[in-house]
């Protein structure tokens, strides 16, 4: 054992290092406890909060009922019942859409999986309820969350191939959205 190590042992150097953060905060004069709900923290930009369903600017739902979110979800939160758009043959939409938020991990895989960007993660997090059945959300509720969280809606692009119209995917030679 070297001298240096010996000194460290008798002065409890590790303890001092370990307690450094505690000690420095001990002398902090401002309290860091936030007075929630009167005060709220600033959320990081990429905060992943409550899930929602989105609409285009003309009010039509983006969701095409492809079931890919259901497939992507690791904890089986989502259930989609898709059907044909009445009156518009061969167009698919989600007739029913359920999310059991009690199981959600907020991993965001469903948002990644969505081919039409119909799912969005909002910055809402105040979702404590007395009855957890209230966390079983249907399509209308999810759309309502989207409506209040995303006031600026994406435009449904014109000048597109009808086959991809509902995906909002433009070809590269098509007019691009101005930055």
């Amino acid at each position, binding site marked *: 054992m070297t001298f240096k190590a010996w000194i460290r042992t008798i002065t409890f150097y590790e303890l001092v290092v370990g307690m450094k953060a505690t000690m420095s905060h001990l002398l902090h004069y401002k309290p860091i406890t936030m007075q929630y709900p009167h005060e709220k923290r600033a959320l990081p930009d990429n905060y992943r909060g409550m899930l929602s369903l989105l609409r285009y600017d003309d009010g039509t739902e983006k969701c*095409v*009922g*492809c*079931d*890919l979110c*259901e*497939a992507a979800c690791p904890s089986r939160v989502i259930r989609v019942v*898709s*059907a*044909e758009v009445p009156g518009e*043959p*061969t*167009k*698919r939409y989600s007739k029913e859409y359920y999310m059991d938020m009690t199981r959600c991990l907020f991993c965001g895989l469903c948002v990644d999986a969505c*081919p*039409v960007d119909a799912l969005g993660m909002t910055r809402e997090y105040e979702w404590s309820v007395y009855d957890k059945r209230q966390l079983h959300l249907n399509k209308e509720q999810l759309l309502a969350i989207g409506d209040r969280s995303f006031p600026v809606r994406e435009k449904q692009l014109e000048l597109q*191939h*009808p*086959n*991809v119209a*509902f*995906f909002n*995917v433009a*070809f*590269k*030679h098509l007019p691009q959205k101005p930055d």
Partner: protein
Amino acid sequence: MANQTTETVRLMIDGISISVPKGTLVIEAARQAGVMIPHFCYHPKLKPDANCRMCLVEIERVRKLQTSCSTVATEGMAVRTATTVVNDAHKSVLEFILANHPLDCPVCDQGGRCDLQDFSHQYTATSRFAETKRIFQKEYFSPLIETQMNRCVQCLRCVRYCDEVMDVKALAPIGRGTMTEIKSFGNHPLDCEFCGGCVQICPVGAITSRLSMYEYRPWMLKRADTICTFCGDGCQITVQTKDQELIEVNSAHSGGRNNGDLCARGYFGFHAASHPDRVTHPLIRRNGTLVEATWEEALLFVAEQTNRIKQAHGPQAFGGLISGRCTNEELYLFQKFMRLTIGTNNLDSSARYGHVNGVQAMRRVQGTHRWTVTFEDIVQADVLLLVGTNITEANPITGLKVKEAVKKQEATLLTIEALQPAVGTISNITNLSKQHLCVAPSQFGAAVLGLLKAVIEGDHVDPGIRQRASDYVSALSHAVRQIAWEDLAVSTGISSDSFAQMAASVVRGRRVVVLAGQILLRSQGGYGMCLNLLDLLLLSGKLTSPGCGFAPLAEENNDQGAVEMGAVAELLPGALDLTDQDSRDRMARAWKEELPLVPGGTLIEMVDRASAGIIKSLFVVGENPVGSLPSQIRAKEALSKLDLLVCQELFLTETAALAHVVLPAASAMEKAGTFTNTEGHAQAVRPAIDPVGDSRPDWEILSAFSVFLGAPLEYGEAKEILKEIRSVIPGYGSLGPSPIAPTADPSAIDRYVTEGYRHDVAIRYTLPPRAVRQEGTVQLGLVQSLFHSGKFSTHSKGLLQIEPSAFLQMNPVDAARFALGSGDRVRLSNNRGQFITTVKVLERVPEGLAWLPDHFAQEALRLFDCVIDPDTKVPSFRTATVSVLKAT
């Protein structure tokens, strides 16, 4: 004719040496070697077309890349599929195919099981295509099949399948180049057989089923391989379900006896099981109405009543009817229940409507109760004789085997049918026949006799049989000599030359299969005609030759099983004779109980006994005598007199409406068991969904009855019953993919040719009565429709979209005679009653005949006369003479 060559060639594929039969395509050889060559347009069932160019491979010493789907493997060939050149070629072809393919996988039903998706993934194809994709306007295609032509890769598999396999030719490519789209032939919505083959064979999502549209993703579905319940062909179907919901049916290529082909009933008829009208709870009649009850109440009620009647009137006051749509296990248990627990032989099944004719004829002549041929023999036959089959509509998949034999193996097809060759929306087997005799159903007997006469008088009798059974031959010769060619010509309208020509074709064949269809089996004298057809084979020396045989076609999916399980009055399990002491002893030993001695009543006899008050109680499992027998039999009145009528049913049928107790039975989608198809191949039925509501499989209900009646027949699962069946019936157990058909029993044939033929030869060899055709009348015939099978299918929403109601099918000449057109209402009447329906003018209906599909014909049944066969007790009510009047 298929020559089963054993010659093989040896070739190298990616360094793997493999030997394949001569004539194998490289792509197939590669598959056998475990090398997957990507492809779109190739399909083993179709002739190679080599249009997708995806399967390009490098072959040594060949300059250009070759399509492996059209190149035949030769000795010493060296194929490379994994080189950079080949990989680049695949990639480039994929890029071309993807160029105009929309990227709408998320909303495409094929997403998840799409060849194009898989190959794109495999080759990580990225497209440089930055131009405008071609677009087809969406057009209405058909009620059940949806097309999305933007997704089409123009492999033409659907068009080729429709033509080569189905012989329907309903689809055609329209337009040229990139603008090629698949449409129905002609400017109208698709009107075809709706076999669903195009949906199944489409490698992408261009053709999809409208029934299950957007309801699923392939990975969500649970699959159950089971057997279709609609006809006797016994097609294997894969039922796909999602949360107890029936989503889709398809059939795997090379799976089952149907080799992946289905008909409209199999493909689109599956919804019948999940119809909302299903009986889901036991019902007991209280104060004249059926009210819901619990199983305990219902079973207890039945047990009490049964015990009471049994004590008062003895076991002969009971009768039982079971449907040929039940599993073998249920049929077996039912007859065991009736014979042991109740103690009567009064039991019958729907095989009585016609199939018994064929089986009894086979038992009598060749000593088997099954075909001596298989579907493979049909495909490889060189002469096929079809008599009264209407095979496309009654047994579509057997029909496909016949088509395959004719189109691919170049067999000679001879037909005696009540059909005219015509181009129509569904395929017509007579279009393919080498020689066709158009005969009215009532004169099939005459046509068969004409053929026999031509064989005997044309000196085509096999010398072997002439030598071995000269008495038999001379008796038949004598019998046919009594029939004059002139009379035959008047009866059938066919000259002796035509008969001679057909007889010569039959005799010339090396592998001759005679198929007798529903129309023959169910018409008056069907038993005699079957015997005569067997005589024909016997006289021409074909009966015992390999690959030759007589094949009566069953209508219901398990008619054959019903006979084999002994669910008919005169037969014990294994189709043993009830009157035979040895058989009785053997069964008694197996069952450890004596069998009832009194001969049982058949279907019509039971109805008669019920109306006479001898039978007091009837157990009906899935049968509907009130709905299917003509009103002349007075089944409704007879059944109303019963003290106890117990029905195990899926739906509240006419019979069940009269019942005292209705018990909800599980459909074939909900239970396990086995079905025996028309060729005698037992196949496994597996449950796809849980029983709907409180319904239970029929065998469970029967088992529960027996417990309540104090003579328990207890089984844990359907497999245990099968085990017992296997132990009881000697030789039963040929469950497997390739059934071994029995061979004709020489001792039975000897018995037949020495003595067995004598007693009815004179009756069999007389011409059937000639119908006198009066002005203003047509001969009405009940036929099967391709889109329905019995009453069950009328609960299927898919099939109802194709054919929602009954209609009278008529020849254009007749229609013109009565000033009728398609869609007109018409009143049919004779001295028994009248019936109003809609007319459909079809060229394939022969002149002077009119057809009515039997599944909606309830109302029309009163027009028909019922004749009961004296030997087999088969009721025949298929034809009637009616006058036709346009209804306003």
